[in-house]
């Protein structure tokens, strides 16, 4: 069993839709949860970071963590064509985050 599971999609939505991206994990020691966005032929860039359980909002993006269910989500409101990318969840055990465990990524296309 992989430590982090993520539905690869692909996911295709109309512009303005609400997008929900999810990951599950098996290692209860994970405490730090990140979402990265990766455009084609680019390296991943950090979008959101949360610690332990709870919600965090940043503009159109909301990250949720439910440690009891070992489930994390990223919501994108009012999706834009520029949001079309692969979204990767990542997790870390330690505060210094030396080793990140990534999901496989979900490919998202927002259709104008």
């Amino acid at each position: 069993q992989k430590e982090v599971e993520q539905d690869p999609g692909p996911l295709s939505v109309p512009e303005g839709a609400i997008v929900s991206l999810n990951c599950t994990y098996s290692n209860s020691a994970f405490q730090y949860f990140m979402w990265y966005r990766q455009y084609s032929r680019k390296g991943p860039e950090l979008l959101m970071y949360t610690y332990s359980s709870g919600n965090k909002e940043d503009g159109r993006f909301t990250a949720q963590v439910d440690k009891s269910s070992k489930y994390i989500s990223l919501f994108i409101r009012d999706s834009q064509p520029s949001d079309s990318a692969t979204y990767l969840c990542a997790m870390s055990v330690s505060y210094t985050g030396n080793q990140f465990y990534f999901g496989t990524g979900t490919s998202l296309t927002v259709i104008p």
Partner: protein
Amino acid sequence: DAGVTQSPTHLIKTRGQQVTLRCSPKSGHDTVSWYQQALGQGPQFIFQYYEEEERQRGNFPDRFSGHQFPNYSSELNVNALLLGDSALYLCASRTGTTLVGDTQYFGPGTRLTVL
């Protein structure tokens, strides 16, 4: 600020050969991590270098080795290449004191194809 740079962009090798990939961290960063991203997969942690030493290693065989230079740049070496080594190799940099919530910057990667 050029950010994290990697060279070469693309590389084609044959099985059994050896390859060296290079990374220059973002200005002010002293810690470099290497990741392997196979097609359709998430990045997998190979190892991290800080103060010219390997500080942590993921589940990769000894064929994967690295080096960090005094200017903080880094090399990833892979010996005895296998077809399964074909992937995008990502370098990420940060400062040694960066906490997990701070940004770790990724380079654009080197696409390695093993034939």
